[in-house]
């Protein structure tokens, strides 16, 4: 599933970022890289841009065009712990808002 297809409020784990090297590095230094849990907080009118919360800590805005190239796997709702690729478990704090 692509990041652009996520519903508002849905959480997902990032599987891959298939963008050009430059912008991929940019995303990763802003905290969006493989293995991270994210949540779509909202979209703008017409869904041109997305407001996404990363790893329960920082928020970024990105446009749909790039979001189409980010592969994600949605993770179930509910409280508890969720697995994070690359090691470790994280308390699922994203449950409260963004």
């Amino acid at each position: 599933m692509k990041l652009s297809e996520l519903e508002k409020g849905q959480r997902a784990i990032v599987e891959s970022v298939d963008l050009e090297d430059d912008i991929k590095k940019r995303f990763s230094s802003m905290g969006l890289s493989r293995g991270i849990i994210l949540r779509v907080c909202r979209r703008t009118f017409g869904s041109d841009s997305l407001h996404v919360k990363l790893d329960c800590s920082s928020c970024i805005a990105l446009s749909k065009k790039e979001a189409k190239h980010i592969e994600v796997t949605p993770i179930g709702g509910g409280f508890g712990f969720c697995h994070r690729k690359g090691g470790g478990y994280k308390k699922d704090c994203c449950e409260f808002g963004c």
Partner: protein
Amino acid sequence: MLKTIKVAIVGQPNVGKSSLINAISNAKLHVGNFSGVTVEKKEVFLKTDLYDIDMTDLPGIYSLNAYTPEEQVAKNFLINEDFDIILNVVDANTLSRNLIFSLQLMDMHKKMILVVNMVDEIESKGGKIDKDALESLLGIPVILTSAKEHKGVDEISTQIIKLKKEDKKANKIYYDERVEQRIEKLAKTLQKSPHFRDDDYARFIAIRLLDRDEQVYKIIHDLPIFIEVHSMLEKMYKNLELEFDEDSTTDILSNERAAIAYNLQMEALNLKDEDEGMSEKIDNILIHPILGLPIFLFFMWALFQLTFELGNIPMNFIGEMFTQTQNFLADFLPKGMFNSLLTDGVLPAVGAVVMFLPNILILFFGLNLLEQTGYMSRAAYLMDGFMKRFGLQGKAFVPLVSGFGCTVPAYMAARTLKNPKDRIITMLVLGFMSCGARLPIYVLIIAAFFANHNPGNVLFAIYIGGAILGLIVAKILRTVLFKGEPEPFVMEMPPYRFPSSKALFMDLWIKTKMFLKKAGTFIAFASMIVWFLSAYPKNDMITQNFQTKIEQAKSSKAKAALKNELNAKLLENSYLGSVGKFIEPVFAPLGFDWRMSVSVVAGLAAKEVVVSTMGTLYAVGGESGASKGLISKIRENVDFKAAVALLLIIMIYSPCLAAMSTFYAEIPQWAWRVFYTIYPNVVAWIFAYSAYKIL
């Protein structure tokens, strides 16, 4: 001579670096530019008993894989400059993301201090940062600070001195065994070149090369060992990517760092509950998909209303003050050239400008608040889709809005755009965002001609009109001259934070000082020239002619009328009159008289000069120069159509000299410089002419 310790302050944007610097006690702040570029360079000097500490604040940078030109400046400094200690500031709220960058910095294997800022926010959430854990894991000193509550800030200088004396560098970051092997091998090869004798430096370069850092690759490119390194690298890229099943070695290193950073955070950050999301609640309203845009427009509208209405209250008072001083000095000082220079030339001009200080301060305050609270990046997010339709992206929105304040820093802010085409389009249309210095002219004209309408609304319409024109021109430029897509839009949205009132007022105070200084020096000087040009050459013939007529005149009314006629005649025959006559043909189709023409041209030096020149030119022959006098003078002398034409010219034509030279410094291509210098004036004239004809 004390020994100097050179410190580079590095950190991601919004971690509170500037607040921290402002909070350091006894520090001297010096603001300049990085050599050759117009990126602001803040240096902090601190004297202690044993050392001088010289700290350079680098622009916020997300990682060593510099993306924007501004980040490039920070990176260049880190790679090329000589310094003793890296002071890495991180935000406790986004610790793991920040630490990824810290790990890149640690690859340099220099002396380093980690400053974890905003601990107050973690503590208020009931969390805790384990300083000792971080220290032992990273092997570098860690300081927990809160710039807001002034905690831990003064520990920074103590720690710098301590670290300078010690001979202890940061821990090495060890990557996966397979990566380490390659780093070692590569570093060995690099050391064959005299450039990379130093073990640490060779290792750092090797890591950067494996990280596919193009800039570092270019350094290698010109060296004799290039061929050997190049073929070795190619093989390593291929093998590593196979072994790790990744697209690029960059990903391998990023994943490694992300995992280390994540585990560091697990060890060091103890956070019971995630915050309930105050920012989230505010965002639900402020960047609502449908309400978001109207709310933003409302904020802007409210700002311009306040700018006009609130700013107008002290205006009369300031104007009155200047008129009083003027009248007093005119009587007090001996009659003569100096008296006239001061009371007819400088004071009305400076007064006409200073009157608008309150308006300008309100505007700046509002824009500052939008920026500092974190709302501006939300507005950029809201506008991204809209801006894309005009060939720009959301991030360009930030420099455009700051253009309402002052064009110069706005040009510099365009450095946060990576794509050169995006940058140049943004900069070419930035002038259409009316800056604060144009405000006095608008306020003057509005007060003279639109007083019956809601002045705040007219002002808002002018600013919005400029913005819309800018977007249309951007679209045209994108389709005609700069074909291609705008760069991808990605931007951080920091949580809402209310800036400290101290910081806000500090900023206003600096603005006020700068404005008064400009009014007292540059504007005063310009008005002296204008006055001189308008008062000379003395024409005794005309004067004598009129003197006799005035004496013969019967009523005092006729006398006054003749006096005015005399002054007008004298002005027309002055140097300035000749200049005005010379340029009049250009402006005549717009209904301008020569005084307006001269004022507009003088405005190319600085927009304040338009008003000050009008102050001088229309004041001559009047009883009181500055303030309300000027408004009624303008109303008497200028017709409505010409006033609208003037508004349009001011809205569109070239910005001031300072802005133009900033543009030249930023854009090296002569073709664009020439284009930039000419086209706004042509557009301005066409608009003004059309308005004059149609109305």
